[in-house]
């Protein structure tokens, strides 16, 4: 099948991190992640559960990607409802099968992340939406899976402006690493529109594979710090024809997956189109 989009390649990569038995946390406004969960459920991981933040339920049924009636499928197929406090304090840190994928605004070579401010905290250049549960999960030994829809030096920075989530070690102003006194974070994957990154034994980010048609040099140019890598970097396995068909026809017929790649005006047009299509489809 031709014309694999960056969204589809990322969804395939995210999907391959899902295992049978997982309980998958569906966060707010994360269509790529929901698509990956659904795809995994329909292919290699039939025995998974979904913990839906929107709708507040646990279900065994993956939701088709949607914007305006997001609560509806989780509520109609609920095994039970769940309060947020239970997910956060009882499952997120304590249940080994609980998995979710987080989106950093800034991430440094040791996997420290910032989702709160760009610039100085007291006089921020940009105030961001916030870190939600990242500080909590990163203070435990739970593996952290990150995804970045637009690989750029604005996201991959030598040092984060404000430390929200712990990586493998603190990065000092000069760039050297210093171990954390208590728990360190446990980042294991960063999946972007260009590449898959992981972390070496030294706790530094490495280039694991590049997606089809992406040169290693391009990834290096768009990363704000040097990436460790093997002399020959493998190609990320692209989505299969079967995966693409499921994705386009069953999981996301309206194309919600592309929203994270559009600029503001195009995103708005697409959102209004999808909302209208959903209204007609009811």
């Amino acid at each position, binding site marked *: 099948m031709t014309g694999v989009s960056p969204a589809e390649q990322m969804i395939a990569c995210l999907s391959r991190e899902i295992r049978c038995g997982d309980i998958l946390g569906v966060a707010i406004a994360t269509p790529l992640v929901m698509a990956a969960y659904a795809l995994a459920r329909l292919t290699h991981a039939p025995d998974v559960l979904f913990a839906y933040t929107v709708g507040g339920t646990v279900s065994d049924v993956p939701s088709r990607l949607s914007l305006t009636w997001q609560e509806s499928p989780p509520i109609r197929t609920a095994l039970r409802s769940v309060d947020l406090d239970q997910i956060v*304090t009882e499952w997120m840190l304590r249940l080994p099968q609980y998995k979710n994928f987080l989106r950093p605004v800034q991430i440094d070579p040791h996997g420290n992340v910032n989702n709160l401010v760009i610039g100085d905290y007291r006089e921020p*250049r940009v105030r961001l939406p916030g870190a939600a549960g990242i500080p909590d999960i990163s203070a435990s030994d739970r593996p952290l899976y990150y995804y970045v829809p637009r690989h750029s030096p604005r996201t991959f920075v030598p040092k984060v402006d404000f430390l929200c989530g712990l990586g493998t070690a603190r990065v000092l102003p000069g760039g050297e690493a210093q171990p954390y006194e208590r728990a360190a974070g446990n980042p294991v994957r960063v999946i972007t529109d260009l590449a898959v990154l992981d972390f070496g034994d030294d706790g530094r980010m490495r280039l694991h594979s590049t997606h089809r048609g992406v040169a290693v040099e391009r990834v290096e140019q768009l990363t704000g710090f040097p990436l460790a890598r093997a002399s020959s970097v493998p190609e990320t396995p692209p989505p299969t024809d079967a995966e693409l068909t499921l994705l386009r026809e069953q999981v996301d017929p309206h194309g919600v997956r592309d929203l994270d790649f559009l600029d503001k005006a195009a995103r708005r047009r697409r959102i209004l189109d999808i909302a209208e299509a959903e209204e007609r489809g009811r």
Partner: protein
Amino acid sequence: MAKLVSMSEAVSTIAHGALVATGGLTLYRRPVAAAAALARRGLTGLRICSFTCSFETELLIAAGCVVQLRTCYTGLDFLGAAPLARAGIERGAVGTVEETEISLVQGLRAAVEGLSFLPCPSSTETDLFGSRSDVGIVDSPDGHGSYVAWPAIVPDVALIHASRADRMGNAELAGGVYLDRQLAQAAKFCLVTAEEIVPTEVLRGSVEILAPFVDAVVAAPGGARPTSCYPHYPVDVAAIYRFLDAAEQGRAPEYLAEEWAAAG
């Protein structure tokens, strides 16, 4: 005293400077009509506490009511950033108390149980933790390590929109409960607005918030619009964009005045 009252009666005792907790989640079942009633009263100095500060917070900021946000997420879900909150914080007009999912939950649970704090194995090494001067460390009495002591969060008011409620205040949320049970129980005063007031027997098996935790009940059909209220109506994306356009052009107060005039 009867709990079933008009909206203006329900909000009449809320004071300037109150810590106001808002129920629901991002664009789902938010207490928009109740927030608008606070704004119409001209309350100032309000501090908003929520798992997610979203449309209801934008509306209160547009009306000039808000001085502080206490949350772990400020934004409009798939519609992106919350422009008024963002601008207010960047300008220094709106302050923040930086929470995480766990610090909010532990703070509310502490309040529900009448404790001054609840412990959690959080990190003390993030800048987020460093921004909080009100958080301490407690040693485990068995000598096995220490915990961060997240202080109780006691809202002066909780605003919760329900699908249905009875005149006593038993409330059916009909879908996502989010943190609304905890908000209702932690707050000193809990206002429930509902799409419909129904006889108690209609609610058997579906009540999420019990009457003793509710102080006022108001019939407010459409009271979550333009956010959703399952199963009554979905998110009204076009209406939220109209608000955002007005906000972007600096016309948010005029927009609110027009909406209120239209609502009578």
